[in-house]
Structure formats: structure tokens, C-alpha cells
């Protein structure tokens, strides 16, 4: 009984490299971590929700937050939480960051009634992708069926 508990504990503690890879891929491209494990339905639903939230957030006039705060001139500590949330969208965030897309707080964007909704959708898209990433990791590590 004690041996069984120990082996169970060891199995839960050690995660194979492929689990880390699936988690990283799931973060980089929302849904990819599940799709590559053959979990098409789960991947399409989880990834699709993140993609839809990100696109709706951008269409609503939301903007992404950077860690440097050079664009807004505010304290970098105030930027950290929303930037970490935005970073959860992985490749989408990096793509926009590399091209400098949608980071500026433009006055015409801020005047829109849906501006704050857009920001919220963008934050939550990232936070949900963190959940999806952990789910892909757990499945690959055998902790979840």
C-alpha cells in the first residue's frame, strides 16, 4: 500500500518533456497543445474560445499592454498585471508585439463605448489560454484523461 502511494506520488511529481512541450505549444498557439495530442474537440473548443475572445477584443477597440509602459508613460508596475494577462495569448501577443500592432492607446479607440470591453476580452483571452495550456500539460503528463 505504502509502495503504491509512493509510486503514485512519483508519477504525479515527474512530468515528461513532452508535457512541457505540449504546454508551451498550447501557450504559443491556442488549441495546438490539445490538437497535437489528438484531442481535436477539446483543442478546437478551448483554442477557439481564446481566438474568438482575442479577435472580439481587438474589434471592440481594446489594446494590448506592454511591460515597459513607454507608450503610456505610466508606472511599469501598473502595467504588469494586464501585460501578464495579455501575454497569455502567446503567439498572438508576440505577433502583435513584433509588428507593433494594437499597443497604442489611441484617442479614437478610447472614445468607443466598447473600449473597456475590448480590454477585458483581451485580458481574459490570455488568462483562459493559461488554463488551456495547463490542461494540455496535464493531459500529456497523464494526470488527466
Amino acid at each position, binding site marked *: 500500500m505504502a509502495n503504491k502511494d509512493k509510486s503514485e506520488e512519483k508519477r504525479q511529481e515527474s512530468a515528461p518533456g513532452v508535457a512541457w512541450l505540449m504546454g508551451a505549444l498550447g501557450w504559443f498557439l491556442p488549441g495546438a497543445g490539445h490538437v497535437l495530442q489528438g484531442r481535436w474537440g*477539446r483543442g478546437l*473548443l*478551448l483554442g477557439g*474560445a*481564446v481566438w*474568438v*475572445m482575442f479577435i*472580439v477584443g481587438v474589434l*471592440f477597440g481594446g489594446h494590448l499592454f506592454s511591460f515597459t509602459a513607454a507608450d503610456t508613460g505610466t508606472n511599469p508596475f501598473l502595467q504588469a498585471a494586464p501585460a501578464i494577462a495579455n501575454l497569455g495569448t502567446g503567439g498572438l501577443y508576440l505577433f502583435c508585439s513584433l509588428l507593433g500592432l494594437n499597443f497604442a492607446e489611441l484617442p479614437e479607440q478610447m472614445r468607443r463605448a*466598447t473600449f473597456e*470591453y475590448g480590454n*477585458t*476580452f483581451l485580458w*481574459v483571452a490570455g488568462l*483562459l489560454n493559461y*488554463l*488551456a495550456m*495547463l*490542461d494540455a500539460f496535464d493531459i500529456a503528463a497523464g494526470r*488527466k*484523461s
Partner: protein
Amino acid sequence: MTHLLVMMLFAALVGAVMGMASRETPREQFRYGLKVFCEFVVIGLVLAWLLYFLPF
């Protein structure tokens, strides 16, 4: 798109992910996702009505 529809879209997407990621069987996932969706919508409507009566 009305504010209510935006809130319902938000609740549906969050409910779908939360249900899928935190439960095992499809039935449990659906039930939990639906519960999260309903909680978002009902609490949002209750808060909206409470704020409506505030004078500031």
C-alpha cells in the same frame, strides 16, 4: 451588439473553457459550463439593477 449580448458572449466563452478544463466527463463539463454561464449572467443582471438605483 447590445451590452447584454456582449456579456452573454463573454459568459459563454468563459463557461465553455472553465467547464472543459475543470471537469472530466462531457456531462460534468456541460453542467459546470452552463452553471458558470448562468452565474455570470444572473450576477451581472443583479449588479446592473443595484447600480441603476444608486444616485451617483
